[in-house]
């Protein structure tokens, strides 16, 4: 049993249990995300769960909301998306008003690509992870553990995070007055996406010729727009739309 003694000496200290693993900033982020989730669910949202590197987390989040551990709590529509082409899978699955929640590192290319499309799809985005943070604005709600340990995803800390998200979301359901005023596709402070200032859109079908219009998808549905200003676009490109025309591209070109 000599080798066994190695394990016995390393309890707690080696696995980095800290007495306060949820700092006040993260607690506030969780609270805000939970209220946003409750508002969306109340308005009929489906939650799409994604975790390309740690697929079990996507399934755990989905089962948590669909089949609550506490008898009597409402079953909420949540589904895991686990196909290798998760952006394409999400594009057909996600409807305006839905929720997209991912557990992923900040440099996960598929999740980065997915998250920057959610506003064009009218979906609320939540990103759970650890280590280096994603850039500001990468998702509507970023729930982050500032711990560089690459093994953090396997120590139960992400599980704690989505357990709390579920628990707090259900607390919000007890406050119907705060759920009614869901600001739909908008942030609570500024409502740029609802005015016609420059709404994000994803190209579905590019213009057929120089004088044609492109079919795009926005948070409020599909529409035909003029893409002359931004030049050639291909399906999947993201643009900002103002007064029926694409003003500029958003981010890198698709593919």
């Amino acid at each position: 049993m000599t080798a066994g003694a190695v394990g016995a000496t390393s309890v707690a200290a080696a696995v980095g249990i800290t007495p306060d693993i949820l700092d006040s900033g993260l607690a506030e982020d969780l609270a805000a995300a939970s209220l946003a989730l409750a508002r969306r669910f109340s308005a009929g949202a489906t939650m799409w769960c994604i975790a390309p590197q740690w697929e079990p987390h996507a399934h755990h989040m989905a089962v948590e909301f669909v089949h609550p551990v506490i008898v009597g709590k409402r079953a909420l529509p949540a589904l895991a998306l686990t196909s290798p082409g998760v952006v394409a899978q999400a594009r057909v699955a996600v409807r305006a008003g839905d929720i997209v929640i991912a557990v992923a590192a900040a440099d996960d290319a598929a999740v980065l690509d997915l998250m920057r499309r959610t506003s064009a799809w009218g979906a609320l985005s939540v990103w759970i992870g650890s280590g280096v943070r994603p850039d500001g604005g990468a998702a509507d709600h970023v729930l982050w553990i500032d711990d560089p340990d690459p093994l953090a995803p396997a120590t139960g800390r992400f599980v704690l995070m989505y357990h709390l998200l579920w628990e707090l979301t259900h607390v919000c359901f007890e406050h119907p007055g705060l759920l009614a005023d869901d600001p739909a596709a908008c942030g609570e402070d500024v409502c740029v996406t609802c005015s016609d200032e420059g709404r994000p859109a994803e190209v579905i079908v590019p213009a057929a010729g120089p004088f044609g219009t492109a079919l795009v998808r926005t948070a409020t549905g599909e529409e035909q727009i003029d893409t002359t200003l931004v030049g050639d676009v291909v399906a999947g490109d993201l643009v900002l739309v103002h007064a029926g025309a694409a003003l500029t591209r958003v981010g890198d070109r698709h593919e």
Partner: protein
Amino acid sequence: MSESTGFLYPFIDAEERDSGTLLTDLAGSARQKARESSALQRSTLEACAEKVAAAGTEMARRFAAGGRMYSFGNGGSSTDAATFAALFAQPVTGRPLPALNLAADQAVVTALGNDVGFELVFSRQIIAHAASTDIAVAFSTSGNSADLLSALREASKRGLMTVGFAGYTGGEMAESDAVHYCFVVDSQSIHRIQESQALLGYQLWATTQRCVAARSGAEGGGR
């Protein structure tokens, strides 16, 4: 009404408009639950330290002898079983070791569930796949799931090492002779039990890694 319990008393009317109080209560509640989770993780690891060391040693011995590990559970616990298997098979660091999650194949799970009953979805797979050098690891919160107990009994009968994760007071898993190493998380909350089981599983993996490294003559310890 104190701030920490305010959320227990919902507004009767639907006229509540200021979300500030609710958000403060939610954040406080989140921190409190996280502290409870950490405290439970700490006490669980301490209570299970010797058993983790012994189980990790035995698992390393079996992996060295060519054994495989099968993990399984139901619902959220099935995903924790999958994370546990992935930790062994595709570790970020250390030696990859053969580990499979028995709920992963929907064809097999639905075929068995439909044809022979859900209680046998894991034990039939143990019968088909397992050799006496293998390891069976079941994740449960109640410790009473019939499909897990059936698989653990089958595994024990076939000479496998059996490990059970349970909560509450351990249920039947804690009583059964078919469960050689039973890790019980002493809590009544399914969420808090799963959070401690995840860390226990991580610790079991880390211990196994150290024992594997020691066996192979590497500088003992890994990370």
